[in-house]
C-alpha cells in the first residue's frame, strides 16, 4: 500500500468511480422497494399525524395518553416478572453445572422464536377458560370446595396475568443470555477481594457485583421492555381489545372503530418510543461488549445443601414453566373438553382427531368460504413469495454491504429501520397509502418481506464478506473461468447462508400476525389469522381447530428453527 505511486492512485480513483456507478444498480431494487412500501407509507402516517385535525381533537389526545400509560404499565410489569424469573435462571446457568443443563437452556430459547399466535394459543390451551387447567380447577372446586374465585380473580385480571406470563415465557431467554454471560464473565477474585477487605454479602452485591453487572442488566431490561412494549398478538389474543395498548389501539382505530387520524398518531408515538429504546439499547449493549473478555467457564456442580436445593427446585420450575405450554397445546388439540357449537347429542369427552379432520372440510356457516386447510396453503404460498422476494432484494444489498463504501455504510441503518416499526404500523401505512388496492393478496407477502428483509440482509452480508478475494484470484490464476470461480468458491459458502436466510424469511412469513391482520381479506386467511378467528368463536370445534392449526404452525416453525440452527453461518443473522 505504501508503495503506491501517483499513477496507481489515479487508477484506483477511476476504478472507484466506475465501481460506485455500477454499484448504484445494486441498490436500486432494494431502495425502490423500501421507498414505496416503507418510507412512503411512513410519510403518509406522519402527514396524517401532523394534521391539525388530529392533534387538536381532545378525544384523540386522551386515548393516546391512556394507551401510552397502559402500554408502559403492562411493559413494566412484564419486564419485572421476566426479571424475577430470568435473574435466578441466569445465575443457575452461569454458576452451576447439572445434568440436562444444555437441554434446559435450549428449551428456554424455544419460545423466543415461536410466532405470537402459537404462544397465545399455547397459554390459552393451558390456563385459558377452555384450557386443560380449567377442568382441573373445577374438579378441585367441586371436590374440595376450593375455588379460584376465592382469590377474587376477575376474568380481566386473570387474562392480564396470562399476558404477563406469556411475555415472561417469551423474553426470559434474553435475560438468561445477556445477564448470564455477564455473570459468568465475573472474576471470582473480585468477590474474594471484597470479602477479605471487609464487605459482607450485602455490600459485595451492592458495591461490587451489581455495579459491574449494571450495563448488562440495563441492556437486558431495555430489550425485554421494548419487546413487551410492542407486543401485539399475545395481548390481543389472550386479553382482547379491552387491553388497549398502543398496538391494540392502533388496530382498533384502523379497523374496528375507524379513526385513521388517531391510529396514525398512536403509531407515531409508538415509533418514537421504540426508536428511543433501541438507541438506548445499542448504547448499553456496546458497553457490555467492551467489558472484560470472556473467561473460562467457572460453572461448577452445586456444593452446599442450599445450592443443591436451589438448583434442583429451580430446574424443575423452569422446566415446567417452559414445557407445559408447549405440550399442552398438542394435547389440547387432541382432546375434547366441551360440546361443539349447536351440538345436541351427548358429548364424548377425551381423545379425538376431529379437530384435524375438520380442517379439511368446508362447512356451510363456517368462518371462511374455504376449508380451513386453505389457510395453510395460503400461508405456504405467501411464505414462498416472501422467500423469493426477500432474497431477490436482500442479495444485491448484502453484496454491496459486504464491502461497503462510505455512502453505503450511511445507507445501512435505513435498511434496518423497518425493524423499528411495528407490524401493525406497517399494516396501517399500507391502508393509508394503497387504499382499496390492498384487497389484492400480493400485499401480504410484500408486508412480510419488509419484516424479513433486515434479517435476510444480516444473514447474507457476513457470508458474502467472508469470501476472501484471494480465493477467487487463486482460482482464476489456476485457470478457472468466472462461472467456474463462482461455482467452486462463492456457491459452497453462499448456499448455506442463502438457505438459512430463506428459512428465516419463510418462518417470519408463516408466523406474521400484526401486519397481516390489518391488510388481510376474508378470502385469503393465513394460519395465524385463522387461529385468531377460531379462538374468538364459541364452541368446542372452533377452539379445537385453533389448537390443531397452532400445533401445525408450531411444528413447522420448530422444524425451520432446527434447520436454521444447523445452517447457521458462524454468528450470521444475529442483529
Amino acid at each position, binding site marked *: 500500500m505504501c508503495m503506491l505511486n501517483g499513477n496507481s492512485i489515479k487508477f484506483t480513483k477511476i476504478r472507484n468511480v466506475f465501481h460506485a456507478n455500477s454499484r448504484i444498480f445494486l441498490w436500486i431494487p432494494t431502495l425502490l422497494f423500501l421507498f414505496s412500501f416503507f418510507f412512503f407509507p411512513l410519510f403518509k402516517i406522519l402527514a396524517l399525524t401532523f394534521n391539525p385535525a388530529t392533534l387538536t381533537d381532545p378525544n384523540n389526545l386522551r386515548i393516546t395518553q391512556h394507551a401510552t400509560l397502559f402500554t408502559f404499565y403492562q411493559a413494566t410489569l412484564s419486564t419485572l416478572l421476566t426479571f424475577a424469573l430470568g435473574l435466578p435462571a441466569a445465575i443457575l446457568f452461569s454458576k452451576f453445572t447439572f445434568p440436562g443443563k444444555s437441554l434446559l437452556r435450549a428449551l428456554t430459547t424455544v419460545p423466543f422464536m415461536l410466532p405470537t399466535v402459537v404462544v397465545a394459543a399455547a397459554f390459552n390451551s393451558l390456563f385459558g377458560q377452555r384450557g386443560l387447567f380449567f377442568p382441573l380447577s373445577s374438579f378441585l372446586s367441586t371436590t374440595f370446595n376450593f375455588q379460584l374465585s376465592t382469590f377474587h380473580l376477575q376474568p380481566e385480571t386473570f387474562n392480564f396475568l396470562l399476558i404477563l406470563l406469556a411475555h415472561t415465557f417469551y423474553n426470559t431467554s434474553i435475560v438468561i443470555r445477556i445477564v448470564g454471560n455477564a455473570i459468568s464473565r465475573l*472474576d471470582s*477474585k*473480585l468477590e*474474594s*477481594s*471484597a*470479602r*477479605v*477487605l*471487609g*464487605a*459482607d454479602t450485602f*455490600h459485595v452485591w451492592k*458495591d*461490587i457485583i451489581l*455495579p*459491574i453487572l449494571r450495563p448488562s442488566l440495563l441492556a437486558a431490561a431495555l430489550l425485554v421492555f421494548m419487546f413487551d412494549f410492542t407486543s401485539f398478538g399475545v395481548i390481543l389474543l389472550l386479553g382482547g381489545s379491552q387491553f388497549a395498548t398502543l398496538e391494540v389501539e392502533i388496530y382498533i382505530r384502523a379497523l374496528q372503530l375507524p379513526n385513521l387520524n388517531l391510529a396514525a398518531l398512536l403509531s407515531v408515538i409508538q415509533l418514537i418510543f421504540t426508536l428511543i429504546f433501541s438507541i438506548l439499547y445499542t448504547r448499553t449493549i456496546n458497553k457490555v461488549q467492551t*467489558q*472484560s473478555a470472556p473467561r473460562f467457564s467457572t460453572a461448577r456442580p452445586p456444593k452446599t445443601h442450599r445450592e443443591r436445593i436451589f438448583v434442583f427446585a429451580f430446574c424443575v420450575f423452569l422446566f415446567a414453566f417452559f414445557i407445559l405450554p408447549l405440550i399442552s397445546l398438542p394435547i389440547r388439540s387432541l382432546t375434547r373438553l366441551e360440546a361443539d357449537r349447536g351440538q345436541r347429542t351427548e358429548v364424548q369427552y377425551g381423545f379425538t382427531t376431529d379437530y384435524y379432520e375438520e380442517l379439511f372440510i368446508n362447512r356451510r356457516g363456517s368462518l371462511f368460504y374455504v376449508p380451513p386447510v386453505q389457510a395453510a396453503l395460503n400461508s405456504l404460498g405467501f411464505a414462498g413469495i416472501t422467500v423469493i422476494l426477500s432474497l431477490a432484494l436482500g442479495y444485491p444489498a448484502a453484496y454491496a454491504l459486504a464491502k461497503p463504501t462510505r455512502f453505503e455504510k450511511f445507507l445501512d441503518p435505513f435498511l434496518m429501520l423497518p425493524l423499528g416499526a411495528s407490524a401493525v404500523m406497517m399494516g396501517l401505512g399500507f391502508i393509508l397509502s394503497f387504499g382499496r388496492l390492498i384487497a389484492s393478496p400480493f400485499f401480504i407477502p410484500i408486508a412480510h418481506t419488509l419484516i424479513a428483509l433486515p434479517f435476510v440482509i444480516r444473514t447474507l452480508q457476513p457470508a458474502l464478506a467472508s469470501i476472501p478475494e484471494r480465493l477467487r484470484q487463486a482460482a482464476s490464476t489456476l485457470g478457472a473461468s468466472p462461472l467456474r470461480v463462482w461455482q467452486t468458491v462463492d456457491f459452497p459458502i453462499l448456499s448455506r447462508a442463502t438457505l438459512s436466510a430463506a428459512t428465516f424469511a419463510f418462518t417470519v412469513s408463516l408466523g406474521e400476525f400484526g401486519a397481516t391482520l390489518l391488510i388481510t381479506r376474508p378470502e385469503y386467511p393465513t394460519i395465524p389469522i385463522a387461529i385468531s378467528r377460531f379462538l374468538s368463536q364459541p364452541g368446542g370445534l372452533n377452539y379445537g381447530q385453533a389448537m390443531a392449526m397452532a400445533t401445525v404452525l408450531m411444528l413447522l416453525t420448530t422444524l425451520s428453527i432446527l434447520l436454521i440452527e444447523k445452517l447457521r453461518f458462524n454468528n450470521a443473522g444475529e442483529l
Partner: protein
Amino acid sequence: MLELRNVVKSYEGKPLLTNISFTVSQGETICLLGASGSGKSTILRMIAGLEFPERGAILLNNLDLAQTPPHLRDFGLVFQDYGLFPHLNVFDNIAFGLKMRNVSVDEIKQRVSALLEQVNLSGFDARKVTDLSGGEQQRVALARALAPSPRLLMFDEPLGALDRSLKEDLLNEIRGILHKTKIPAIYVTHDQEEAFAIADRILVLHEGTIIRDAAPQEIWRDPQFAAVAKLLGIGNVIEGEVIAADKVKTIYGTFNLNCAKNIGEKTQLLLTESPSPSGRGARSEGKSPSPSGRGVRGEGGEEIQLTVEDVLFKQDQFQVKGRGGLVIHMKNAPRIGDVITVQVQVKCLS
C-alpha cells in the same frame, strides 16, 4: 500470632492437604513454597475464610477463627492478577476496605494519599485501574490490602504476571513495607529467588504437608529433602544405591556416606560444588577419566570426573552441563567432550 493446627483439605474428592501445621509470629514474613497445584493458594483462602478446612483449626492469637466470616477477619490478600475492582478508580479501590469499616471521609482521604505515596503512585487517585500497567495495578492492589491496617497480609504469587525488572523493584518495595509496618505476612510463590529475597522463614509444601520449615540460609545449607533441593534449585540431586553401611554408588563414583538406609536400597544425594580457586569447583583436564571411576576425597569434599556435554554462557561464568544432567559453574569455558575434575560436596537426602 497465626497458627494452623493439623489442617486437612481435599479437592474434588482427592486429598490435597493432609496435615498442615505452622505458625506466623508478629512482624515475621514466611514464604510458602510449593509446586503448582500443591495447595498453596488453598491454604491462603482458608486463612482468609473463603474456604473451610475439613479438619484442624486456624487460630489467631489462640482464638479459633472457624466462626469468623472473612469480612470480619481483618486480613489482607493480594492476588497474582490483582483482583482490582474494574468499575472503581484507583482512589475508590484503595478506599474500599476503609469504607467498609465506616472510616470518616477525611481520614480516608489522608490514608489513601499516604498509601499512594508509599507505593510510588502519588497523583494516580482518579485514574481508571484498567488503564494502569501490570506493575501499577499490583501497587494499587498492595495499597488496597494495606489500607485497613490488616492483622495479617497474604500474597498469592503477587509478582507472577510481571516481567523481571519490575519484579525486583516491587519485591524490594514489598520487603520495605513489610519491614516498616511489621505486619506479619505469608508470601506464596514458586519462585525460589523471590522466596530467598523476602522470607524470614521458608516453608516447603510437598504432597500435602510442610516438609521443611527453616530460615533461608539453613535450607540452602541443608535442604534435607530431594523435593526441597529440586524446588529451590539447590545443587544437583542424583540417584545412588547403598552398597555398604557407609558407601553409596552413583554414576559419578562411589562416595563414603552413611545415609541410614539398608544395603541395596536406592537413595538420593545432594551434590553441590565446593568453592575452589579455579572456577567455582571444577578444573579442566584434557586427559581421560581415571579407570576406576571412583570418587576421590579432596580438600573441599569429593572429587569427581565429568565429561562435558554442553556449555552455556551465564552472566560472569559458564554453566557446564555434564554426563547425567549434572550442572556446575566454571570461570573458563571447557570444550564439549572434555573430561574435567570437579570438587563437590555430597549429602544424603530423604
